[in-house]
């Protein structure tokens, strides 16, 4: 050792970087591949959104015909959900979770690479419908009998089914990997109740993916059999049941909503304490609220089906309202964390606060839609479009950008430019609300979703125009983000290991971290090991007074780990 000093970070193999990225099994590189791939699909689906909004700007059919319009909103929804929001959050999870639990990599690195590479393949298959006579056009929900061969004869729907099945397989494999990683790869001292909230939300998300996605896969296969081999699962003329598709789709689809929002909640729960200079208020309550949401998410699916007349309205209305409670608990966690904190409004924090405000609106409209008397009036109107965009976009996508600004310095070693970040945030925030807030009123005044045209006498024209202006503003807001990323990669301010004075272990290593992640790990006595290393008992540890620290920690209210430690006899 003494004579041959080899820098372990030097490239051991003289491989081209292209081959290196194509064959990598490093969770950090795979995480970046996930994120870049997801953003490419985000821009593609965003262009489709502009097609939709352009067509709706004024009454009449100006730009596209009805069939193209149907394909546009189907592809927009499918790609945004399955190839942007879910995988981009998996990408951040891939990069951050092993770092936050002090692990060198994911549990199954090669399966990790496989689950990534299935994504672009599945996404391209879904899109390739455009090359073969038209993409799928029955909405991202693929309702039977509209998706049956009789009404959607094109091969686009079959490609949609195959692509989604691949993407679903990818997320199941990813979920197995996350759960195994979190249970088997934690560093010594990293007990379950010392895990960062982001890791907890990824864990619950992975369990939801593991249990919900296979049901969708079964349904997609059934639909494929109906369309191609003369099956009759969803064909009532030969004994099948079209409502069955809705049950299968939403049994998956509602947990999917939480698959999309829980990791974003985790991101926000990492950011708010750091930029409020306080520990997260009610760590354990937050964890149990996350688990409760996970459990309840399997018992609310039929609130998407109130108007079918085939579901038990009181039960699903009750469960839907119930799931609002743990979500409300989290709102209090975040607000109480910020209360009397020393708040800095850096860009990640702006996006996190944006998340709180927008997700609150989406949550309230969600509880409204969960009440059958209201839902019967608003089913399939723009009110639903408003609700789902406040949750998916105002919630998850704000969380995605918060994560991007927060962890970019760790991933690249460079800071993003703050003024450009703020321009991005405000354009994005105002554009988002201009686009989607009017949808509430459009829905209340009866505008149905998924229509390409509307009457000039309907009174929907002005609100639609405002919405279209907002959509273009969102599109413009992406430019400062892209410029920021490119400029910062070339010439950004060096970030150092811990630019935000963070709490969690990813900030204990270099930016970007070496392939094996950590040279050495700090001692882990709480859910904020790095904070204590830099601010708390660092001095005490240095002076050999560890047990005093333990006692002090056990006395502190935010410290839940002390008890766990005693119970499990880990000290």
């Amino acid at each position, binding site marked *: 050792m003494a004579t041959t000093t080899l820098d372990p970070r030097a490239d051991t193999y003289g491989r081209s970087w292209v081959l290196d990225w194509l064959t990598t099994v490093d969770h950090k590189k795979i995480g970046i591949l996930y994120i870049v791939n997801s953003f490419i699909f985000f821009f593609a689906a965003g262009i489709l959104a502009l097609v939709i909004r352009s067509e709706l700007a004024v009454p009449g059919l100006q730009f596209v015909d009805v069939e193209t319009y149907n394909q546009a909103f189907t592809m927009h929804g499918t790609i945004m959900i399955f190839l942007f929001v879910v995988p981009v959050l998996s990408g951040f999870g891939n990069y951050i979770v092993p770092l936050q639990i002090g692990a060198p990599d994911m549990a199954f690195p090669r399966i990790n690479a496989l689950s990534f590479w299935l994504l672009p393949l599945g996404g391209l298959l879904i899109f390739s419908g455009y090359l073969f006579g038209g993409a799928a056009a029955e909405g991202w929900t693929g309702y039977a009998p509209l998706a049956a061969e009789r009404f959607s004869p094109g091969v686009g729907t079959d490609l949609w089914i195959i692509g989604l099945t691949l993407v679903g397989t990818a997320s199941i494999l990813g979920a197995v990997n996350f759960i195994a990683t979190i249970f*088997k790869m934690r560093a010594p001292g990293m007990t379950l109740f010392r895990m960062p909230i982001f890791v907890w939300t990824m864990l619950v998300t992975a369990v939801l993916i593991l249990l919900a*996605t296979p049901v969708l896969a079964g349904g997609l296969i059934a639909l494929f059999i109906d369309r191609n081999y003369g*099956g009759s699962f969803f064909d009532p003329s030969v004994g099948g049941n079209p409502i069955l598709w809705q049950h299968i789709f939403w049994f998956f689809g509602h947990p999917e909503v939480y698959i999309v929002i829980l990791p974003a909640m985790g991101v926000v729960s990492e950011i708010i304490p750091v930029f409020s200079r306080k520990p997260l208020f009610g760590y354990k309550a937050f964890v149990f609220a996350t688990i409760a949401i996970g459990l309840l998410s399997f018992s609310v699916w039929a609130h998407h089906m109130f108007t079918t007349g085939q579901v038990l309205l009181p039960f699903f209305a009750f469960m839907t309202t119930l799931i609002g409670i743990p979500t409300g608990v989290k709102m209090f966690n975040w607000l109480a964390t910020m209360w009397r904190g020393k708040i800095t409004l850096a860009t990640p924090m702006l996006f996190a606060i944006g998340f709180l405000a927008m997700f609150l609106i989406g949550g309230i409209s969600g509880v409204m839609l969960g009440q059958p008397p209201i839902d019967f009036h608003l089913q399939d109107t723009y009110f639903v479009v408003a609700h789902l965009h406040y949750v998916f976009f105002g919630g998850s996508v704000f969380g995605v950008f918060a994560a991007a600004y927060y962890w970019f310095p760790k991933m690249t070693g460079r800071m993003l430019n703050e003024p450009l970040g703020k321009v991005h945030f405000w354009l994005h925030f105002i554009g988002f609300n201009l686009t989607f807030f009017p949808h509430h009123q459009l829905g209340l005044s009866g505008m149905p979703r998924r229509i390409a045209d509307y009457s000039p006498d309907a009174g929907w024209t002005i609100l639609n125009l405002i919405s279209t202006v907002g959509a273009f503003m969102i599109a413009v807001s992406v430019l400062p983000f892209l410029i920021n990323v490119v400029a910062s990669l070339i010439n950004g301010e060096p970030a150092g290991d811990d630019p935000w004075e963070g709490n969690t272990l990813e900030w204990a290593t270099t930016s970007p971290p070496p392939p094996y992640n950590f040279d050495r790990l700090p001692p882990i006595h709480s859910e904020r090991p790095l904070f204590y290393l830099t601010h708390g008992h660092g001095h005490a540890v240095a002076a050999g007074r560890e047990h005093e620290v333990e006692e002090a920690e056990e006395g502190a209210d935010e410290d839940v780990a002390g008890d766990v430690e005693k119970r499990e006899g880990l000290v």
Partner: protein
Amino acid sequence: MTTRTATADPHTGHVTAHGQSAMPTALLGMLLFIASEVMFFGGLFATYFNARASAAGEWGPPAGAHELDIVLAGVLTAVLIASSFTMQFGVWAIRRGNIGQLRLWTGITLILGVAFLLGQLYDYSTLGFGLADGVFGTTFYTLTGFHGAHVFGGTVGLTILLARAMRGQFSARNHVAVEAVSMYWHFVDVVWIAVFSTIYLLR
């Protein structure tokens, strides 16, 4: 893991960090994968029961076709259950370090699995109705077909296991793959018991 405080399980030699269970990561991965498979078959069973509940008239093969061959299906059930036992004998053998017996029992399990598949194909060829003949046919072939596909996947796993055992790659301390394949094989067996009970017994 080597630079950290770690303890090795004396029986499996598997290294674990403090406070974490001794189940090898690969086995946990297989268990989680099986959990997702349970949900997959759960969905297919739900479609079966939904179709059955909403079907008008008598539930069963379409008029004019043969009745289901419950005797053949019963024999195949016995074959598959037997294969679960032979698989487990192989696992117990390698836990004792007896690789010769592992080869023997894996080989027998593989033969039984292939026999099940051939029997199922023969059954399909004699039934006289197809996937497209009404909702019973659709659900029947989907459930039994996807189960058959999983048996096929299991025989691929068994073949790899046998090849590796022939090369002497397993020992009492190192046989996670054997445990994982056997776990999957037992799962496929249990699914068949559910399929058989649902389609043939709950008439």
